[in-house]
């Protein structure tokens, strides 16, 4: 119960005081949006209604700028893509059928700005939020991943942001008992004031456990449970003090949210027990827009209405006003719909787990969402108008005027591009320099802060290409996941860049041996009110939607993060793409490194290499970003994927690694360093077949390529397979377990260069600690 004692702006009061001015602009609404609310209601909104509309119609909740574009994800879905899709875009997270009665749900979400303000808590609550989305589908969360982007590694603020973000991702995920199975780290000046923290969670369930966020069954009860409601996330909304229309000032509102992973862990177990006992009809997590979102979405997805009493909400801060309670983003809360018969059993389960709850009201047949405060009505709306009928903008967009000049500025025309390393010594130095650049250096200072073992089902995790989780212990059925983005390529051409990100994630999943099935994405861009940025967004979405259609895997959900810009400086367009694949048996997963017992195995390069250095890590090392991104051939990606999946299924290959950032050079180094097992390769045939100089062969970032290692006894069978599928491939060299070296030979002065793995590891693993440790 609240101690509040001020005159409340009731619906009745609002009707009788049509001329009262409300602070709609301070709540972020535009004049025409406010007018629309008045038109919908046929009167001015109450302060509480205004609070609800303002948060639910915000960019973050309503997707008002992005909606018209995101529709393509639905429109470009074919029958084939729909086959395994149990729940598509629109619910908390999409659900994909895995067979054997199992289903999997996954989603990526951003927590960018909060992580800049308070890195630890911002990142921690980001993980907490995405995990609640997964629970609300009825699933048990089984793993997390994180895609992180920071400013330059040697910038002082990176030293503030990075350790905090990493500790926050780890602190929250580790405490939940969710293995972190992969992610990305990128450093680029464009993220200096706008770091990106994107978190992915994946969960599994039996088909019958699927739950949706809807309030159905007149007379069913509505309950809020988990943490108490505080003033979190409503810092800017203190203007709503005016809802009391008197002089009592609200107390201070927190500017950041603090996560409580322990409460969330208990909430997970409690929810799973509720699902198991069939004790909830519908369920919704509370994230952005808190109770406003939960009540209006549950009600509008149901067939009737909902009536709740807001004074029954358990508060952490008794001075909160009704509008603030509706907007609060306090973490670790859930809302559920429960039948009266199950109420007692529900309470017993919550008592067992020590979770607080309060019954707020019930499902009605009025079609209205009615919220009372001490028995007086302060909200009376059609819930659809809040949750689904928000404004939709066709923001103007236009190809940036600067793009032609950028695309014309190819790396090949620069000093560094014309003066590529030629001799053995130059090439060796260039490889060592490239792989010890911050973006290719050993990320284990970061990833060792994440628990990759908990649960006992992790079959692959960082530093391998995909994270692989076993779901069914009897059969070995499981999933593989990868998240990727190539923002520099997206900057050069957002359509192609988005497809390159998709292709890379698809390839990583297939490299591990999993059959790609579904996509989730997190679209991080600058301001949509800036037409060139809106163009980048529109192009990236179009590229992604077309790419998914061509690959035959649907987008099942995702998240949009706009306004990642400070002044005129926007981040590179950063569509982060997560691909999920399926395994009949995770025992088939393919490791990404040469194993110790693999001495003498043959190393094959699959795919073709073109002179594609624009936007590459090699170009970045030389301070250049211009030209055109590598070409994408999604049919080729499918063929490559099929080969890798079959090779894993038939046990033909013992190691496989995709080629992406840093090209062939980075892939060779990573495969050798994984277990400290050396290799010897020769570039001659490759340079000759694809018409390349050695440096371009090593550093080009052409898509559709992978390296594999296989026993000689499998070579004939493997060659038959690639020939039958028409995939260009060539034998590049052999695994040399004894040498402790990576040797690269070719038609260049000196004949070959050698990198000692121990020395390489030492400098490779020192890069990140050197910059971020105190």
């Amino acid at each position: 119960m609240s101690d509040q004692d001020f005159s409340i702006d009731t619906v009745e009061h609002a009707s009788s005081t049509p001329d009262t001015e409300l602070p709609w602009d301070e709540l972020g609404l535009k004049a025409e949006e406010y007018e629309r609310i008045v038109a919908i209601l046929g009167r001015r909104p109450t302060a509480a209604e205004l609070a609800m509309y303002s948060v639910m119609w915000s960019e973050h909740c309503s997707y008002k700028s992005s909606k018209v574009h995101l529709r393509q994800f639905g429109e470009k879905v074919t029958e084939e893509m729909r086959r395994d899709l149990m729940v598509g875009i629109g619910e908390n997270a999409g659900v994909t059928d895995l067979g054997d009665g199992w289903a999997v749900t996954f989603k990526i979400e951003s927590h960018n700005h909060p992580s800049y303000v308070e890195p630890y808590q911002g990142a921690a609550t980001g993980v907490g939020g995405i995990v609640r989305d997964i629970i609300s589908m009825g699933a048990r969360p089984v793993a997390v991943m994180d895609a992180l982007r920071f400013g330059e590694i040697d910038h002082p603020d990176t030293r503030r942001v990075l350790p905090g973000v990493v500790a926050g991702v780890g602190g929250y995920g580790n405490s939940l008992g969710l293995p972190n199975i992969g992610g990305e780290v990128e450093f680029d000046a464009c993220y200096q004031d706008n770091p990106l923290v994107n978190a992915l969670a994946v969960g599994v369930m039996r088909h019958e456990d699927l739950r949706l966020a809807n309030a159905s069954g007149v007379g069913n009860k509505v309950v809020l449970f988990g943490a108490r409601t505080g003033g979190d996330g409503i810092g800017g909304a203190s203007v709503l003090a005016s809802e009391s229309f008197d002089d009592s000032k609200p107390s201070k509102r927190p500017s950041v949210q603090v996560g409580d992973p322990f409460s969330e862990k208990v909430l997970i177990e409690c929810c799973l027990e509720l699902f198991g006992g069939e004790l909830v009809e519908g369920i919704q997590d509370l994230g952005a827009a808190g109770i406003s979102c939960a009540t209006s979405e549950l009600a509008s997805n149901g067939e009737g209405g909902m009536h709740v009493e807001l004074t029954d909400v358990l508060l952490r801060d008794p001075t909160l006003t009704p509008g603030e309670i509706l907007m609060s983003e306090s973490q670790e809360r859930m809302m559920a719909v429960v039948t009266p018969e199950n109420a007692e059993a529900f309470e017993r389960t919550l008592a067992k787990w020590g979770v607080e709850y309060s019954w707020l009201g019930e499902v009605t047949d009025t079609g209205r969402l009615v919220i009372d405060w001490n028995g007086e009505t302060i909200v009376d709306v059609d819930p659809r108008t809040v949750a689904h009928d928000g404004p939709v903008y066709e923001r103007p967009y236009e190809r940036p005027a600067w793009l032609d000049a950028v695309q014309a500025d190819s790396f090949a025309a620069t000093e560094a591009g014309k003066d590529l390393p030629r001799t053995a010594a130059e090439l060796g130095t260039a490889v060592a320099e490239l792989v010890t650049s911050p973006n290719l250096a050993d990320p284990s200072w970061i990833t060792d802060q994440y628990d990759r073992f908990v649960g006992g089902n992790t079959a692959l995790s960082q530093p391998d290409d995909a994270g692989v989780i076993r779901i069914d212990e009897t059969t070995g059925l499981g999933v593989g996941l990868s998240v990727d983005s190539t923002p520099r390529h997206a900057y050069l051409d957002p359509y192609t860049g988005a497809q390159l990100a998709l292709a890379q994630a698809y390839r990583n999943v297939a490299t591990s041996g999993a059959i790609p099935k579904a996509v989730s994405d997190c679209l991080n861009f600058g301001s949509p009110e800036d037409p060139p940025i809106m163009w980048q967004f529109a192009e990236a979405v179009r590229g992604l939607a077309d790419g998914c259609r061509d690959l035959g895997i649907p987008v099942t959900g995702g998240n949009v993060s706009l306004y990642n810009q400070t002044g005129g400086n926007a981040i590179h367009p950063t569509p982060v793409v997560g691909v999920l694949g399926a395994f009949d048996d995770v025992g088939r997963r393919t490791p990404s490194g040469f194993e110790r017992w693999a001495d003498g195995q043959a190393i094959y390069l699959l795919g073709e290499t073109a002179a594609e250095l624009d936007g590459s890590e090699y170009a970045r090392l030389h301070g250049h970003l211009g030209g055109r991104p590598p070409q994408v051939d999604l049919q080729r990606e499918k063929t490559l994927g099929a080969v890798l999946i079959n090779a894993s299924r038939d046990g033909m290959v013992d190691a496989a690694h995709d080629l992406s950032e840093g090209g062939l050079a980075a892939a060779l180094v990573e495969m050798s360093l994984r277990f400290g097992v050396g290799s010897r390769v020769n570039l001659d045939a490759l340079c000759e077949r694809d018409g390349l100089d050695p440096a371009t062969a090593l550093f080009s970032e052409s898509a559709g390529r992978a390296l594999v290692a296989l026993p000689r006894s499998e070579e004939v069978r493997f060659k038959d397979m690639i020939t039958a599928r028409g995939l260009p491939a060539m034998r590049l060299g052999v695994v040399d377990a004894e040498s402790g070296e990576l040797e690269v030979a070719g038609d260049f002065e000196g004949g070959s260069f050698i990198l000692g793995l121990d020395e390489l590891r030492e400098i490779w693993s020192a890069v990140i600690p050197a910059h971020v440790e105190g």
Partner: protein
Amino acid sequence: MAQASETPLIGETGSASGESALDGARIGVVTFPGTLDDRDAARAVRIAGGTAVPLWHADDALGDVDAVIVPGGFSYGDYLRAGAISRFAPLMRRIAESADPSAGAGLPVLGICNGFQILTEAHLLPGSMIKNDHLRFRCADQVLRVENTSTAWTAQFTDDEPITVPLKNQDGQYVADAATLEQLEAEGRVTFRYVGTNPNGSRHDIAGVSNAAGNVVGLMPHPEHAVEAGFGPDDATGMRSGTDGLTVFTSVISSLAGSTAGPDPAGGAA
């Protein structure tokens, strides 16, 4: 965890098959709010040939178990101090009574990571754990030396056997006063010691200790994460192939059965 209603999802404690004929040793696995590795510990028991019995922190009786594992995790969020709140659970009192060697045989008890922290907070084991010297959570494959093979939990190891098991914690730096350390060394109660670089600043490179009677053992690294090829730490035989941790569980099961049961189910039933 103890609930019967839960979907039989991955790593479930109860026996999933129903036709399990393995009713060798009954090993209790305790779940506190915030416990994370309970499913893993139960799986390790099953793979080793025993029967895992879920125990709930709030229960006031141990029931029919022959040994108890207090698993890892972040019970009560590690708030206040790791293990500080959990040690007051009703079940912990029962565990302490049964583990007291003066009261009878002395129930074998193993605390892993957070479980070790709980056992020190409960004064069942000496010393305590403070933050790692580098102040970070760290997850890594760790080599240990088994220095005492006379406990129920280490009997099947050979003396000074090196084993690889995952280490993952934030508060893993073992500390005790000089007198206690001296006594632990003198009595051979340092059960596991870190090999190679000390990962967290622990005194005397201590990774695990036992009580004087040897029935209560605690260790920071996680043997239950090294019991199944394909899901363990990397080792010489290949990626994620390490299963050295399994011997901890077969040791206790065979010592309870009074036989030499191994991981082979057929031979494991007492």
